[in-house]
């Protein structure tokens, strides 16, 4: 007895599709619906409120500042992470003694638990911590209560940590991309007398474009969703409230306004989608996009 081919494949993929439907598609669709209701965890029942949640969001100073902080976070970390990751990939691409050590050392932070890293950086950033002492040595101003307990520096301190911890991962992706570049191209260019800079601009960069797109899109999505760092280090205080932390705080703490939090989550989803589409469009454009 044999089942039709399609039935077999359906059956074989069912564990995954069922899980996806139950724990991903359904919650995502349901939270879209909840965004239009006044659903609160503690209340019995809920009512349809139309666009009220969305209207309230865009009049809520806390949400607007969360949006602003999220954009600062994304726009501040992505270029830096991308450029640093590419530079490091170029460095560890060429043969030198101890290359394997540097490759793994750069990659190490990205396999370490975020919570552990956050706790270590809290120590470094605190009053009298190493970062403060270093800054004092070179004559930079140091906030009196440490970098994380100051409205002017907290977000940037977290961003710096994020760059430090994610750059190794993207370096690895760039490295894979670099190794896929055919060697003959470089040889041909060299024979034709192209300088190292020219070879980098005309061969390496264009051929790395798909890899760079991947890095930027993935990193943007991840950065828009920044949460753990904020949760561990500042709990959204000291001007570090971001969108996902806002969703968590409103939906799962204090007043448990799940409807309101769902609406905020959907605003973030739309922003991420638009941002990704824009990135694809920009990077696909022909001609020198760099």
């Amino acid at each position, binding site marked *: 007895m044999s089942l039709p081919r399609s039935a077999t494949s359906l059956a074989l993929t069912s564990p995954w599709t069922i899980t996806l439907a139950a724990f991903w598609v359904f919650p995502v669709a349901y939270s879209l619906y909840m965004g239009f209701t006044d659903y609160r965890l503690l209340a019995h029942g809920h009512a349809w409120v139309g666009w009220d949640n969305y209207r309230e969001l865009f009049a809520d100073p806390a949400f607007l500042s969360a949006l602003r902080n999220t954009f600062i976070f994304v726009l501040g970390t992505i270029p830096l992470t991308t450029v640093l990751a590419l530079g490091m990939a170029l460095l560890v691409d060429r043969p030198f003694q101890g290359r394997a050590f540097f490759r793994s050392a750069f990659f190490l932070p990205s396999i370490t638990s975020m919570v552990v890293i956050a706790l270590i950086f809290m120590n470094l950033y605190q009053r009298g911590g190493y970062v403060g002492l270093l800054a004092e040595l070179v004559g930079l101003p140091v906030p009196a209560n440490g970098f994380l*307990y100051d409205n002017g520096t907290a977000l940037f301190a977290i961003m710096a940590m994020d760059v430090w911890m994610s750059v190794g991962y993207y370096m690895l992706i760039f490295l894979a991309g670099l190794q896929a570049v055919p060697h003959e191209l470089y040889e041909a260019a060299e024979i034709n007398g192209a300088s190292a800079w020219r070879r980098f601009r005309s061969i390496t960069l264009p051929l790395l474009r798909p890899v760079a797109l991947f890095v930027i899109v993935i990193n943007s999505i991840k950065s828009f969703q920044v949460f753990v760092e904020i949760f561990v280090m500042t709990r959204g205080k000291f001007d570090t409230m971001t969108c996902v932390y806002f969703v968590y705080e409103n939906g799962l703490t204090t*007043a448990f306004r799940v409807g309101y939090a769902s609406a905020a989550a959907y605003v973030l989803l739309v922003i991420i989608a638009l941002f990704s589409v824009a990135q694809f469009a920009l990077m696909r454009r022909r001609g020198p996009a760099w």
Partner: protein
Amino acid sequence: MRITTALIALGLGVTSARAQTTIEWWQFWTDPSIKPTIEAMVQDFERENPDIRVKLTDLTWANGHEKIAIAVASGTAPDVLELGSDWIAQFAAEGQLADISDDIALDSAGFNGWSLATYRGRVYARPWILGTRVLFINQDLLKRAGLDENTVPVTWGELMAAAQAISKLGRGVYGWGSNIAEKHRLYKKFLPFVWSNGGQILSDDGEFCVISSTRAVGALKFYKSLQDCCSFVDDQRGLEDAFLDNKIGFIISGDWLLKRIQQEKRSIRFATSILPGNNPNLGEERTPGVRSIAEVYPGKSFLGGEFLAVTTSSTHRAEALKLIAYITRPENQVRFCKANYSANPSSRNAQQDAFFQENPHLQTFGRQMRLSSHPPVDPDWVFMEDEIEKAVEDVVFNDAAPGEALRRAQIRITELRTKAK
């Protein structure tokens, strides 16, 4: 054959259900120093009530509130809940807690803390272990600063002077410990100053928000000046660490710090006292010859605590109430407090125990509790709290003007309350 088996199984089920009821209790005491006491009390309760079994589930302070809310929403709430006092109104207003007003009438006289569990005239939980905060004084630092080591600052002015003197020691030593912007914690530190200055959050009839009164603004000004002149700023745990390391002269803390000092066998020389006051009617002048601090300078503190409630979804209300009555018995409260070094049992009888009477620090907590206030028992308190904390943050970390920051908070709270009505 199958039917017979099913019938037998059903029959057994019915008899065992009659013989024994299992109730679920969710509680927060997971520390190895106190969990065994909770378990022992539950065992004793089961021995006294052979027909009731108790299933204990541990919650943590980090996510307990979330877990309870999710359980309530999904219809899987336990029979008995331990609740922090600031959550009672929220759960009661949504109809998630059983009204136990008629069940506790008989013994209400023997307990403190009912006002925290009373929402719109009905009682929704029973006070268990209360908690307040007092002033911890580092005597070594007082001495090093050239002050009498038995100095107890009674007024804000005295506190400021002593804190300044200690800060002058320099080398990482500070007079006062001030909290960072910690949600649900900052207001507990700030409100005592408001109350000690004669200020209030709501008017006496509960109708209007008055958090921008001259007295509240004065309290915020003083709070800010204390932070600016001589403060070590950190989260509560960081402040306590620094205090125990002889880096801070004065901090406000709770009985958990006494427990920590004992558990970790710290050699710190410290005193406790009720919070300094600033009776606005008397100004900063001390009246000569008046000995009772409480009468002249009421340094008010924050009152909160642990409460036990029955959920409306519980189908074993009588058994749940029995468990609550047992756990909150005076002798069991003493047992709990001894194990946990808790200073404020809700039972007045328990408070008479030698354990509390013979320890000067625990006595400070007892005195301070009688001089404590609590925020309004209101489901919208979480929002009011947020506005008040924002105002304090704005002033102490952003240099906003105290009057304006509190006025903004008052306007937002008034709007919220109007909307809620």
